[in-house]
C-alpha cells in the first residue's frame, strides 16, 4: 500500500512537471501559433535568477517563486519588442530567430556563470510514508503545477485581459476590427508565457541544479507535450502531459529515464500520425 502511494506520487509528479514546463510554451503557441525555441533558455534564466537571489540571501520562497517570473517576464517583454514583433505572421522565421536567441543566451550564461553546476537548496525536507521516504518538495511541485493551471484558467476565463486574449486567439482580424490592440495582446501574451517559463525554471531549480545548457533537457519534452496537446493551451497541455507523463514514467520504471524520453518521442510521433492537429484538434475542440 505504501509502495503504491509512492509510485502514484512518482506518476503524478511526472505529469505535473511536464505540465509545468510546457504551459508557458503552450500559451504562446496557442495564442500566436509560434513555437518559442528559446523556451528552455527562458526556464534556465528563471533558474539562474533564483540561484542568484538565493546567493544574495533573499528568502528562498521569494527566490524561487517570485523573482524568476518577474525577471524572465521582463526579459520576455524586451525580446518581444526587439525580435518577435518584427516577425509576426512569419512562423518559421520566428522559430529561427528564437533559436538564434537560444544559442545567444546559452553563450551569455556560460560567459557570466561559467560551465559549472550551481545548486539551489531544497526548501522542504523529506516526508515518510510507511516504510518509504519521499521528497516533500515533489508534493509541493505537484500542488504548484495544479495551482498554476488553475490560475491561468481563471485569468483567461474571468479577467478582461483574458477575454481580449481569447478573442484575439479565435479571430485576430475581428478582434482588431472591434478595437482591440492585438499587437499589444500578443506582447502581453509573450511576456506572460516567458514569465511562466521563468516560474517553472525557478520552481524546478532545486531539483535540477542550474547550468547553462540545462534548457536542452527540458525543451524536447516541452515541445512534444505542446504539439501533442494541440492548439488549446490549457486542456491540450493537461491532456498531453497526462498521456506522455504516464508513458514516460512507465518506460522509466521498466528501463531508465533516457528510455522514458525515447518512449515519449515514439508515442508523440505515432500520436501526430493519428491526430495531426494534436489531441485538442480532434477532441474537446474550442476549449481553452
Amino acid at each position, binding site marked *: 500500500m505504501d509502495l503504491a502511494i509512492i509510485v502514484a506520487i512518482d506518476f503524478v509528479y511526472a505529469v505535473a512537471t511536464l505540465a509545468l514546463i510546457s504551459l508557458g510554451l503552450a500559451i504562446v503557441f496557442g495564442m500566436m501559433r509560434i513555437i518559442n525555441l528559446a523556451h528552455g533558455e527562458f526556464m534556465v534564466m528563471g533558474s539562474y535568477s533564483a540561484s542568484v537571489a538565493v546567493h544574495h540571501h533573499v528568502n528562498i520562497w521569494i527566490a524561487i517563486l517570485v523573482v524568476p517570473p518577474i525577471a524572465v517576464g521582463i526579459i520576455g517583454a524586451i525580446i518581444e519588442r526587439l525580435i518577435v514583433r518584427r516577425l509576426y505572421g512569419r512562423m*518559421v522565421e520566428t522559430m529561427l530567430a528564437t*533559436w*538564434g536567441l537560444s544559442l545567444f543566451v546559452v*553563450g551569455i550564461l556560460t560567459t557570466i556563470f561559467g560551465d559549472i553546476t550551481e545548486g539551489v537548496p531544497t526548501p522542504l525536507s523529506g516526508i515518510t510514508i510507511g516504510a518509504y521516504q519521499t521528497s516533500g518538495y515533489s508534493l509541493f511541485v505537484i500542488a504548484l503545477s495544479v495551482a498554476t493551471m488553475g490560475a491561468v484558467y481563471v485569468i483567461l476565463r474571468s479577467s478582461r485581459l483574458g477575454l481580449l486574449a481569447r478573442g484575439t486567439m479565435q479571430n485576430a482580424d475581428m478582434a482588431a476590427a472591434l478595437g482591440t490592440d492585438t499587437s499589444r495582446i500578443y506582447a502581453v501574451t509573450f511576456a506572460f508565457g516567458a514569465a511562466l517559463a521563468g516560474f517553472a525554471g525557478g520552481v524546478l531549480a532545486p531539483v535540477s541544479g542550474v547550468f547553462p545548457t540545462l534548457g536542452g533537457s527540458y525543451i524536447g519534452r516541452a515541445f*512534444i507535450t505542446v504539439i501533442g496537446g494541440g492548439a488549446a493551451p490549457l486542456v491540450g497541455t493537461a491532456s498531453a502531459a497526462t498521456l506522455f507523463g504516464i508513458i514516460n514514467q512507465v518506460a522509466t520504471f521498466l528501463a531508465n529515464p533516457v528510455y522514458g*524520453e*525515447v518512449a515519449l518521442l515514439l508515442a508523440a510521433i505515432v500520436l501526430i500520425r493519428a491526430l495531426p492537429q494534436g489531441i485538442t484538434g480532434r477532441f474537446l475542440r474550442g476549449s481553452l
Partner: protein
Amino acid sequence: MITGLRTNWSLVAVGVVGVALLIGLPLLLDTYTLLQITLYAIFGILALSLAFIWGYGGILCFGHSAFFGLGAYAYAVAVINIGDSTAPALIAIALPAALAAALGYFMFYARISDVYVGVITLTVTLIFYNVINSTAGPKYHIGDALLGGFNGMPNVPSLNIPFLPDDTLEPLGMFLLSMVLLLAVYFALQIVLATRFGRVLVGIRENEHRVEFLGYDARLHKLVAFSIGGALAGLAGCLFVSWGNYVSPTVFSVVQSAQIIIWLMVGGAGTLLGPVLGAVAISWLTVEIGTQQLVNANVVLGAILLIFVLLVPKGVAPMITDRLVPWLLASRRSAAAKHDLPQGSRA
C-alpha cells in the same frame, strides 16, 4: 554546345574552380591546412544535403544533425566490428536514409505543418543526443564497439580503399575523396533538380496544394527527397568520423543542427553553392573563435542567426544574384540604352 555552355555558365564555373582546387590545393598547402579544408568539404556535403531538402523541397528540418550523427555512429560502430570500411560506409548512408524515410512517413503522410516538422525533427535530435550521452560504461556496446557515452568513441579507423582494409586513406586521400564527393554531390543534386522529380519538388515548395491538384503525390515526393537528404547527411557523418578518427555525442547536439541552418541562412537557402560557401565561412569562423577565450562561440552563432533572420532573410548569395547582379546589369543596360536610344529598339 555554345548556347548550352552559356546557359549553364555557373555550373561550368563551379566545375572548373572545383577541379582547380582539387588539383591545386594539395600542391600549395601544408598538411594541417589541407586537413582543415577537408573538414570544410565534408561540411559542404552536409550543407548540400540540407540545402536540397530545405531550400528546394521546403522541408524545414531543424534536426538535421540526427542524420549526420547517425551516419557518424553507424560508420564508427560498423567499421570497428567489420574492419574493412566498404560495408560500414554503405551502412552509414543507408541507416540515416531509412530513419529519414520512417520519420518522413509519419510526418508527411500525417500532413503536419512546417512548424511541427521543424519541432519534431529537432526533438528527434535532442533525444538521440540524450540517449547516446547516457551510454557510458562497458555494458553499452554493439559487438566490439563500446559506445562510450559522453566520452565518445576514439580510435575509429579511417576509410580504406574498398576491400583492402590495410590501405587506409592518408590525409591527402581523405582530401581528394571529400572534394570529389562534394563536387559529385553538387552536380548530382543539380541533375536531380533538373529532372521531372526535382521540378515537382520545387513546385511543392512553392504551392503544395496546386501540385497535388495537378495529380502529383506531394507526400511521396517529400518522402523521397527527405530520404536523399538523410543519406547525404549520413555520408557526411561517415566522412567526418573517418577524418577525425573520433566521434562524440556532440554530432547530435542542437548546436550542430543550428550550425547547418546557419550555413544555409548565411549562404542563401534557395541555392546549392551558397550553403557550401556558408559552411566554409562559418566553420572557419568557429575555429577562429575557438582559438581565443574572450567571446563564446554560441554567442556569435546565435547573433549571426538572429541578424540574418531579421536583416538578410534570404542569405548572402541570393542578395548578390538578385540585387547586385541585376543592379550591375541594369546599369550596364541603361548605359547601352543611351547608345541605342536613337533606334528605340531597347525600350
